[in-house]
């Protein structure tokens, strides 16, 4: 600066008239101005750096941190669902999901992102708003190759840097709705679930079990997601992964289901409506559970589209309903063994008691028909069970009265939830005078008892209930809690202190149903003492309107409950075939499952003969190719040719 000032002085000292244009000193003042200007420019620049680097450096170092570190969730795979032999029913498949990092989301990017990924813009915007507390929002699962390519080419810092692809696990369910109801499906948690105590620790956007075992054992199946800090460059590409907090996979769930029996039951219910349940009456283990019509849970994995959901939810046949535990239907004649044991135990009848069946009888001024128009003639207990004589049981019921019927019905579990480990079980109805007073504030009329005696009227059951009831009866009057998860300690719910002779008489009657030309003779299997009881149930009055709406005739539901062997039964199977009109239509279903059970038992531990043509279990069609590992032991080289 001294230099500049001295220049000034010099130019002032020299008289103006002595200067020529050639004298460079003439410009000294202007050069000084330039020098001041230069000083100003550098002060201006340095002050800018001071402001950025010294005054508030934290703001910018955080911004830089933000640029480069992305915290991403590492999704934990859900536990697998296995059958009793450890074969995989539900698996996980690696897939890719797209998430958006909330802090980088720009509202103006969303239409383009929604458009490219074929998402509904309204849904997407709504989801982002809804999950206000989540730093990251998964917006699409199961990205296709093309979608991944699109995201990777648009996630750089100058396009849509909020997008990030993460590895995810897609739930892989068997095809064609195999065991769909018992397994359930997963989906994004909804508002009402968030408020429920079962899901207290869950957050918006979590994937939870929505139904079946997936829901019941969600805590077991779900893992704990981990966290990754990922160093990314300006193209959004990962450079380095730091501080990975390990994801903890969910625990596998070993169920009591037997895939072989389940497959047979599924196939025997093809094109039908109804349900099949197989139980082990000795401990309550559920071996198979089928409900038809069914749905494909693969459509529900993760985030189902609204149209798919509506299509399934609005189907008049209610494919989502697990008929095995939620149907509430008149049991029809399958109720008769309970009437029989009640009658014997209360001594209103004995095995010598005869009634005359002319094809119907009048009680309290009403005529009640027997299903056999020309009547059974003189009939005693054994034949009454085997031939399913209605008139005989009208008389038994009339002698017992409703409250004693209810006492034995409830002992067998009718009107109570079985307590199976599945959500949303219904309890059915076991009417009694108290029940009627409570429900309708009306007195019970003796005439109503007559209908209940043959499993009609107000009595309703689910297939599981009636299977458990008759299975427990066959197992000596011991009712175990049905369950789907292996347990060393079966829960004995109720025990009937029956006279063993009385019990034996009822079981003998049920043996007659199958083996003495009774209504269930189609379940006959050489070498195995199968017992059972058919039922042809008229639709309960509440179902009348439903049936009319469906356009199907108000055809009777066919029931068959069978257990075997006669002494110390190992398996009880119920088949409900809706609108099948005649009970014998349900019998072959049960026989198939029983046969599969005893066939499997016979070959257990024994290798298959070398050249035996393995009847390939048609279970194949339920699984995507290639043959699932669970079936490989059964596939012999060349066997399929």
């Amino acid at each position: 600066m001294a230099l500049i000032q001295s220049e000034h002085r010099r130019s002032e000292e020299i008289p103006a008239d002595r200067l020529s244009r050639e004298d460079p000193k003439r410009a000294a003042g202007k050069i000084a101005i330039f020098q001041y200007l230069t000083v100003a420019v550098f002060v201006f620049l340095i002050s800018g750096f001071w402001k950025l680097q010294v005054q508030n450096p934290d703001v910018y170092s955080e911004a830089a941190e933000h640029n480069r570190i992305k915290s991403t969730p590492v999704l934990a795979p859900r536990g697998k669902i296995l059958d009793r032999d450890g074969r995989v029913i539900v698996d996980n498949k690696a897939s890719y999901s797209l998430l958006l990092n909330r802090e980088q989301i720009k509202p103006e990017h969303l239409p383009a992102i929604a458009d490219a990924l074929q998402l509904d813009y309204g849904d997407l915007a709504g989801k982002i708003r809804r999950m206000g507390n989540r730093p990251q929002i998964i917006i699409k699962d199961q990205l296709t190759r093309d979608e991944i390519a699109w995201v990777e080419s648009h996630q750089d810092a100058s396009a849509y840097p909020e997008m990030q692809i993460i590895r995810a696990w897609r739930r892989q369910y068997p095809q064609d709705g195999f065991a769909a109801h018992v397994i359930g499906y997963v989906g994004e948690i909804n508002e009402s679930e968030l408020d429920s105590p079962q899901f207290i620790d869950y957050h918006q956007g979590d994937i939870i079990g929505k139904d079946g075992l997936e829901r019941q054992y969600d805590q077991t199946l779900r893992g704990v997601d981990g966290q990754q800090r990922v160093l990314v460059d300006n193209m959004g590409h990962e450079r380095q992964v730091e501080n990975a907090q390990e994801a903890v996979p969910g625990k596998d769930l070993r169920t009591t289901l037997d895939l072989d029996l389940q497959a047979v039951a599924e196939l025997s219910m093809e094109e039908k409506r109804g349900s099949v349940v197989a139980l082990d009456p000795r401990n309550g283990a559920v071996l198979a559970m089928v409900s038809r019509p069914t749905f494909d849970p693969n459509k529900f994995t993760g985030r189902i589209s609204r149209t798919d959901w509506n299509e399934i939810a609005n189907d008049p046949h209610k494919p989502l309903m697990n008929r095995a535990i939620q149907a509430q239907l008149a049991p029809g004649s399958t109720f008769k063994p309970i009437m029989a044991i009640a009658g014997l135990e209360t001594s209103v009848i004995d095995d010598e008691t005869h009634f005359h069946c002319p094809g119907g009888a009048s009680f309290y001024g009403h005529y009640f028909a027997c299903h056999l128009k020309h009547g059974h003639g003189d009939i005693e207990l054994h034949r009454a069970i085997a031939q399913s004589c209605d008139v005989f049981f009208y008389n038994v019921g009339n002698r017992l009265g409703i409250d004693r019927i209810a006492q034995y019905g409830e002992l067998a579990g009718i009107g109570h939830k079985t307590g199976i480990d599945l959500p949303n079980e219904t309890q059915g109805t076991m009417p009694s005078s108290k029940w009627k007073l409570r429900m309708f504030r009306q007195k019970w009329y003796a005439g109503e008892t007559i209908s209940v005696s043959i499993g009609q009227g107000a009595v309703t059951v689910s297939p599981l209930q009636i299977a458990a009831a008759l299975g427990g009866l066959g197992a000596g009057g011991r009712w175990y809690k049905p369950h789907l998860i292996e347990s060393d300690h079966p829960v004995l719910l109720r025990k009937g202190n029956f006279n063993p002779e009385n019990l034996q008489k009822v079981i003998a009657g049920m043996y007659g149903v199958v083996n003495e030309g009774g209504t269930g003779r189609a379940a006959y299997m050489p070498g195995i003492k199968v017992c059972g009881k058919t039922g042809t149930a008229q639709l309960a009055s509440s179902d009348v309107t439903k049936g009319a709406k469906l356009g199907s005739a108000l055809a009777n539901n066919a029931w068959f409950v069978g257990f075997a062997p006669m002494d110390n039964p190992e398996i009880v199977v119920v088949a409900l075939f809706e609108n099948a009109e005649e009970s014998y239509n349900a019998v072959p279903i049960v026989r198939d499952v029983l046969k599969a059970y005893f066939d499997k038992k016979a070959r257990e531990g024994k290798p298959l003969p070398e050249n035996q043509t393995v009847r390939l279990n048609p279970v194949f069609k339920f699984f995507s190719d290639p043959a699932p590992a669970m079936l490989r032991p059964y596939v012999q080289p060349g066997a399929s040719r």
Partner: protein
Amino acid sequence: MAVYRPVRDLDWPLLIVTLALCTLGILQIYSATVGTKWQDAWWKQILWVATGLGMMWVASMLDYHALLGRVFYFYIGCLGLLIATAVIGNRVFGSTRWIKVAGFTLQTSEFVKIVLILLVAKFLTDIKSETLDWRDLLKLTAYVGLPTLLVMKQPDLGTSLTYIPILVCGVLMAGLRWKYLLIISGILLFTLPIGHHFLKPYQKDRLVSFINPDRDPKGTGFQVIQSRIAVGNGGMWGRGAKESSQTHLGFLPVPQTDFIFSSFAEEHGFVGIVIALVLYFLLIMQVVQNAQTATDRAGLYVCMGVAALLLFHVLVNVGMVIGRMPVTGIPLPLMSSGGSNTWSVFLMLGLVNSVRLRRFVN
């Protein structure tokens, strides 16, 4: 005219400051590009600097009066070169700025600067009146305006704007009546909005994002925001060489050229940039000092033209890095990687030395 000009008489302080800045530049280029596709930019830059020093030596040996005498041919030559660039030049990123000569890709507009400095100096020296009159002013503006328009059409707004300070500085040094100055300022104020109309959309975007970078943080404002983040991330002492996340994770666009100072600021912090800016200040002041000691008006105009150009480059480039100037895409002299600019700066410094070496003559 003295024949013997000892090496001793070269402007050594200027040379030392120049080499210090080049060294900072080469180190920073190395640090910013290590492991990227530009990772051999640093030794290329060494080559540019070494050859640039040779050119500077040659330029300082030439008598600037001889150059001024031939400036008309130079001017015609550079107009021809710009037209040739437009015709046969390489089109990169939508603009035609480069021409291939003997294996080198040269940005012709960089060398036009030198010719314009000489042209302005020659023109103003030839005027014998006390102050410029309208006719001279318009003539000179036309001379400078023609190549400016040609470069603007390439399009390369940044480089074409660097020609303006040469003209402005020369005119102000020659002396301009206050009345004229006011009239010119008035006309400029009115014509600027019209000029805005002729800007390309991306140039308008740059202006808008300069005024408000947060308006579109991932678009044109992106570079400014990321550059400011990089500078701020440096803090007082810097992140250290090769430790800067903004530079090395690619958030800074081309950190070895236009945004090299941003990368430098991230790695060396406030302390580093103060040192670098002091060096630039010394560089410009040393050039100005040569203007003051020049033996004649011609030498003064040449040196002041160089000083004004360097000041403009530093102001616009460094100002852009901290978001105080719009993104125009002009390099930082001596530090940014690139041959044409380095050579042209060394040639200009050669002219300054040429003036210096002849200061005792006459």
